[in-house]
């Protein structure tokens, strides 16, 4: 969708009006200085042009008050830009609770999207209007960047770990998304469309195109068995490794006494670098699966583990910190 204005794209997310206001503020200050200094240069240029070839100028060496003023005033103005920019950025980087979580995997040169129901899309992203949407970003190969100009947000997609970004779409429509980090030959083709829908339409779209065979929880369960996770991660907690029932989203107590939230990044790390965080009460026995699983398979596994949230948690359950143990 093309914006009505030739100067800025559509305003289609909660961030867009804030970023545009900030843009106008900084543009106003900068335009003032650019115009004032250019005008002064041009005025002096003509006013003090040389009248006689042997003329010299008036020897003025400087002025302490002026120097102080043009250090202090720009500094103060710069600090206001910094402050306002920081407010917008912190708002963007602090994820809200209660988000609709969508996985986005970048690979040379396409985007794979997985909706919470497991529905998959390629180079398309459907989201409901008015809902906080969190994208969990993973890369199969090089660094990519998921960018939606109409939402005024972007985030790099870095191989080796998850990045997250969020936004709340505010206006139904179709908007470009781009890969905005150079990623090789077909970088320019690595884009697609975000479709912002009314919540009812989104729900209908999700159910209308559901595909049971592509259910990632089912695929994850199969992987879990194939990779021989089951013999150790017994559901009742009697195995050599903690039960994964109810672990997703819970606080996990580690061997060093600290706790960690079992989010997507933690689960990913525990599969690829199991020695990084050892659950209290267990031995560091698990082998690394680095290089044996694609990002997509990791998401399948995570989705499967997520689906175990409703399963009964055994007494010796994954070192999950007792509720009384934390504030």
């Amino acid at each position, binding site marked *: 969708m093309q914006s009505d204005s030739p100067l800025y794209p559509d305003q289609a997310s909660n961030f867009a009006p804030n970023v545009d206001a900030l843009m106008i503020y900084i543009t106003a200050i900068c335009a003032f200085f650019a115009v004032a200094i250019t005008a002064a240069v041009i005025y002096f240029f003509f006013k003090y042009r040389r009248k006689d070839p042997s003329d010299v*100028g008036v020897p003025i*060496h*400087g002025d302490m008050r002026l120097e102080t003023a043009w250090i202090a005033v720009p500094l103060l103005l710069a600090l206001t830009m910094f402050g306002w920019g920081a407010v917008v950025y912190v708002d963007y980087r602090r994820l809200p609770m209660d988000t609709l979580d969508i996985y986005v995997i970048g690979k040379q040169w396409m985007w794979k999207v997985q909706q919470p129901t497991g529905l998959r899309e390629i180079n398309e992203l459907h989201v409901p209007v008015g809902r906080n949407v969190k994208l969990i970003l993973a890369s199969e190969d090089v660094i990519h960047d998921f960018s939606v100009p109409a939402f005024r947000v972007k985030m790099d997609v870095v191989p080796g770990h998850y990045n997250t970004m969020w936004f709340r779409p505010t206006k139904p429509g179709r908007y470009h998304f781009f890969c905005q*980090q*150079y990623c090789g030959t077909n970088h320019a083709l690595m884009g697609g469309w975000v479709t912002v829908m009314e919540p009812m339409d989104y729900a209908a779209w999700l159910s209308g195109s559901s595909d049971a065979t592509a259910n990632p929880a089912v695929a994850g369960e199969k992987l879990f068995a194939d990779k021989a996770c089951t013999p150790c991660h017994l559901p009742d907690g009697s195995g050599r490794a903690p039960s994964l029932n109810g672990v997703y989203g819970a606080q996990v107590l580690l061997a060093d006494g600290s706790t960690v939230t079992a989010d997507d990044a933690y689960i990913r790390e525990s599969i690829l670098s199991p020695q990084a965080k050892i659950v209290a009460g267990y031995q560091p026995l698990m082998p690394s699966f680095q290089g044996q699983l694609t990002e997509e398979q990791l998401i399948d596994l995570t989705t499967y583990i997520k689906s175990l949230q409703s399963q009964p948690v055994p007494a010796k359950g994954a070192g999950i910190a007792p509720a009384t143990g934390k504030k």
Partner: protein
Amino acid sequence: MPREHYLNATYGIRSWLLTTDHKRIAMLYLVSVTFFFFIGGAFATMIRIHLLTPQGLLVTPETYNKLFTMHGVAMIFFFLIPSIPAVLGNFLLPIMIGAKDLAFPKINLLSWYIYLIGGSFVLYSFSTGGLDTGWTFYTPLSSVYSNSAVTPAVLGIFINGFSTILTGLNFIVTVHTMRAPGMTWFRLPLFVWAQYATSIIFILGTPVIAITLLLVGLERMFHLGFFNPALGGDPILFQHLFWFYSHPAVYIMILPAMGVVSEIIPTFARKPIFGYSFIAGSSIAIAVIGFFVWAHHMFVTGESTYAALTFSLLSYLVAIPSAVKVFNWTSTLYKGSISYDTPMLYALGFIGLFLIGGLTGLFLACLGLDIHLHDTYFVVAHFHYIMVGGAVMGYVGGLHFWWPKITGKLYPEFLARVAAITLFLGFNLTFFPQFILGYLGMPRRYSSYPPEFQVLNVMSTAGASILALGYLLPMIYLVWSMRYGAVAGPNPWPATGLEWQTASPPLTENFDVTPEVTWEPYDYENRPDLGLAIHGAPSPVHGDD
């Protein structure tokens, strides 16, 4: 013209290739950086023609990626970084402080040979498969996935780094130990201050990029896992190391140009520069603070919010010394005796373009705006305003200012003014539309783009053709003037620096007798030797020093 000078003191190819005269080495650099400028410029021309249509007019995406990569590598590492220091700095720095040569003349020649060897590796990479990683060499694209000739390119840049380091070392030692009697630190021309600040960055920053690119080469050749996450490396570590040098490298490019402008403005306003010590100090401040802003290139990599806040704040701080310079240059014009000579047109053009380049840096340092603007054409426009509008305008302006000194000849003034104005207009038409493209969201490094971006791209390409003309014109008349130009005489403007006290072109030893400096810089008021009428001037106003 003097009967004997550095150009005709000895003859033959050996006398040039084995010279240790800083002026001749500067000429060797002039030829070689101009060569790389032409290569980089040819790539730029193809890029702009290609982008005339949304689908891309000229080449495949693969070739397009090579074009912008090789454009960046040629221009940054082999033109912009050496341009002012190795050409103008090499020629002028010893003369400006009243010395016979740099402290280490043989090392100076060695620098040039290292530059040639590094350049050869890079040309080898360009001609055998090309390079498609972007000049930023981001991993793991460069270290694992790219099929282009990455290894010779990183080796070339690694080798070239030693050339830069040696030049910086030479300059620093020379300024410390070889100043003529009376040439105190605060009598140094501001160009020397700028070269000194640049040299600090050369020797502190360059080793980091050299090692970093070597690590990329090692990861590529021997699969050592520094940056590749599949081998346990961290791709973000590369970005930290890369920008730790490459952000200060922006100041390597712009500081010397600021030094040129600080020479031109007082000369053509015929008055002392306003706030000498503030301009000198701000060069050092930029060099130092410039080392602590690198991660502002990484606000959307997922770096911690606290790191982002810190680097945003520091980036705003580094803007202040640049602002101080602009205010002081503008104030220098006040009550001056201003002429329209070509170097002055370049200097004033520099102020206008650097102003826009610098101010748009404030947009990118702003965390909230960077999440929208990062890696869009806004960034492309911003850094071209700094590097081309600033650094190249400064370099070309400096060439025009010192050309009569370097060659002893004057260039055709009217043509030169036409070229300066053509460059200014062509530049703005090329790059201003790119700010708007960026805010609209057009990503950089795209070989094809959505059709709604076409109008602005066509404007940009139209501007680029004017810009190209503006660069060709000086090439032609400057070369022409070497043979046919009018004799310049020792001090045609006239200017106050020591380089104007000796013949044009200078003798091999620069001065007959070592000069003794008894005057302050740009002190037209107390320089009866310049033959100017010091009439009706009120008593000097001293506020600064």
